[in-house]
């Protein structure tokens, strides 16, 4: 396993995480859930951000996904609160 995964954060989640984008080594993260758990272990602030109020939605490569969606090197994973357009 090599390469990286790009992670994007939007709206309230971006503010709580304190950044909008980061690139992490792909490592041993076969799913969105595994990526999240790895980030939480590495970064306490990250853990707090995801424990904040409201639900967290996820997209993989700009398509709505869920925590069991498989990941591959080069993927773009985005985390955000429920959408409020219109």
């Amino acid at each position, binding site marked *: 396993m090599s390469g990286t995964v790009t992670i994007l954060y939007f709206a309230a989640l971006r503010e709580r995480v304190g950044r909008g984008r980061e690139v992490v080594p792909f490592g041993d993260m076969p799913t969105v859930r595994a990526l999240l758990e790895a980030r939480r272990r590495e970064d306490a602030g990250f853990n707090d951000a995801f424990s904040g109020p409201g639900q967290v939605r996820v*997209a993989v490569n700009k398509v709505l996904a869920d925590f069991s969606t498989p990941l591959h090197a080069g993927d773009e994973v*985005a985390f955000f*609160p*429920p959408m*409020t*357009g*219109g």
Partner: protein
Amino acid sequence: MSGSSLRTAAVPRVRVQDDPFDIAAEMECLRQASVLVGGIGSFIGVVRGGGGLVALSLEHYPGMCERILTDLATEATERFDLCGCTVIHRVGRLLVGEPIVLVLAAAAHRAAALDATRFLIDRLKTGAPFWKSEEFDDGRCHWVESRAVDEEAAAGW
């Protein structure tokens, strides 16, 4: 002269932009899409004041947003047999009274045009990656939370 043959060019117009939109020009464009247009439905969302609100700031997920809006407009075109439809959504900081979103749907008959308009705005509200932050005259800012009533409206289609 069949409807479908004249509608092969009915590619939805979708845009996400900072700038205001030109309602009359967009309407005109749809009106001329086909001689079979009998009605055009539209909806414009506006920044609603009250409670000390000064502005909304709209954030979006570039790329995913346009793709979702295009899919939604394509679904509406097929489902309601549209001659054409247009979705334009603004992002950035918008003051009270400013237009946020424009949805237009042109069809042979009014029921389809009006149904499609409602479908598009209902589904867009909770299905496209936009997020709103409210800014008040006392300096407070906070993110708008999604409303159950909007989730239900979207799920109703």
